């Protein structure tokens, strides 16, 4: 049993992949929090609390939900918009929910505009610029999501959540698996239910290349 835990960084100049440290992905019906397998119900609560505590809770929708390339993608996009609107309704003054897309995976040269997009090759730039202290990836291909999650954990203190349509992400601090419209809506419902019960953090994300 590994003692390693997937925690907000900045962790290291080059943090290890959580899988290489013995963290395993959840089975259907489960999620993980900090690398520890938990019932999915617990993850809804924790994810909602993290959103409600954050100064800049942010959703990062990826290409799989940014285009209506099939009916399911379109319905997921609507659910994600609902989750974003729910966050805006439920946060307190001083908290600023954001919705920043990851439209594609090509590195942005010479310079990304971090106010309008995030990129898996240098996601820390968008996190730092917007002082994002809690984020959720959704609709990002698993490989690119893991690249991003590791880089974010390495260089920022942002709390990362993955709402993965496949097997989940051990490089996130909290990960759902088998994401569906219903699961996104359930997370929105949980945020709504916990509104006013969670004290927001006063400080925003620390930045820094390494610890």
């Amino acid at each position, binding site marked *: 049993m590994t003692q390693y835990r997937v925690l907000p960084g900045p962790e290291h100049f080059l943090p290890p992949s959580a899988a290489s440290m013995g963290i395993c992905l959840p089975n259907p019906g489960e999620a993980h929090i900090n690398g520890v397998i938990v019932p999915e119900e617990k993850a809804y609560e924790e994810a909602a609390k993290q959103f409600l505590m954050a100064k800049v809770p942010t959703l990062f929708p990826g290409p799989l939900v940014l285009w209506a390339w099939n009916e399911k993608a379109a319905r997921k996009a609507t659910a994600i918009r609902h989750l974003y609107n729910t966050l805006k309704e439920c946060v307190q003054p001083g908290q600023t929910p954001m919705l920043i897309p990851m439209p594609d995976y090509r590195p942005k040269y010479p310079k990304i505009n971090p106010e309008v997009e995030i990129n898996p090759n240098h996601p820390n730039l968008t996190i730092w610029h917007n002082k994002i202290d809690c984020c959720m990836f959704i609709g990002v291909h698993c490989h690119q999501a893991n*690249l991003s999650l*590791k880089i974010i954990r390495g260089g920022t203190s942002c709390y990362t959540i993955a709402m993965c349509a496949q097997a989940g992400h051990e490089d996130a601090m909290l990960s759902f698996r088998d994401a569906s419209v219903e699961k996104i809506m359930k997370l929105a419902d949980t945020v709504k239910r916990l509104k006013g019960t969670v004290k927001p953090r006063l400080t925003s994300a620390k930045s820094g290349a390494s610890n």
Partner: protein
Amino acid sequence: MADTHSVIGTKNKKGQTFTDTWKMMNEAPRTPSFYTGSEVIKEALRRASCDVMIAYPITPQSEAAALIGELFAEGYIGDYFRGESEFAVMSQCAGAAFGGARVFTTTAGPGTMRAMENFPMWSGARLPIQMIVTCRGINSPLSIQPDTLEIAYLLNTGMLVWHAETAQDFFDWILKGYMVSEEPDVHLPLALCCDGFFVTHTKDVVNLTPTDMCLPPYDPYRSPVPCMDMECPPVRMMRDPFIMKSNYISYATHASWQQEVWAAVERSRKHTIKWLNGLIETENTDAEVIIVASGTAVSQGREAIRLLEDEGIRCGLVKVKVLRPWPGEEIREATKNAKHIVVPEFNVTGWLAKEIKATIPDSDRVNAGPHVCGGMTMPPEIIASEIKTLLGMRTMSLAGRGS
């Protein structure tokens, strides 16, 4: 778009039923058949719902590659052609897999080495291609005979690497291999190795699944990277060559990318254990001496154990089925009581013994050998003799001037 689950129970154009793989492999009736390893490869492919097979002749895999051509002629394979060289074949396999096809190829020895540049590319691009490696000698002077040295080169490519002992392993693992390597959290190429000739050209009784059952098709939309679908909108997100840029971000991304490939190797552990019933198999691990081997060296080890039992010497056995992911914990546990760990190998460098030494405590317990190579057989008597020597027993000379 393909939906794997929706096709279960329906038929393909050859009248085979797409079957839940677990049921097909574990519950369906089996028919004993007397086949060569090459024929077994063909029979596995008949049931694999394979889209593309690309071939190039090199002994000892040529027969299997030709037999799969017959399958194509019969309509069981979507497409089949010969590349211009092994390097071309592996590049063409990548193209087919990028396009969302289930891909199969076979190679051996110098062919493996010639194509080597492609294998880390396959892994980095997360392409779940299956490649049969029928191992043979690789160095000059030319040898077509069995020798497992090429496996050592595959171990650090980021591919999954399995080492079959028998034709039965081969049949089952070809089909199960796709189930592991196509998992979205894995999605890596698989090098399924065997010892050339010993497995490919000898006949054995193999229990086959029904010919009217086949694997569900590959669903490229579960891939962790975008497939090159030119019709659907997430199309323009190719894997850009960020390594062409010289800056910190490019280096850090490439580092993270490499880590992700090896993370995927780690994730395959769970699925491989489920499908192969463990990464290793063990017998009598409480014995003072344990043979740890992979491939046909396992069979020779078994025979040596039988010979030693006749003399009242008890030995254990660890069959290493999977080399990547490396079964380190399993080997540590299985060998924890052994005073001597004997590692017979069909190669000159003893790569398996080196891996084991790097894994276990008190690695001076590892006896790296006996080794044979260049096509030599490994008589079980030489393994038995080595074990008796380790135990301080007198043993008759097995090689000499005949005096």
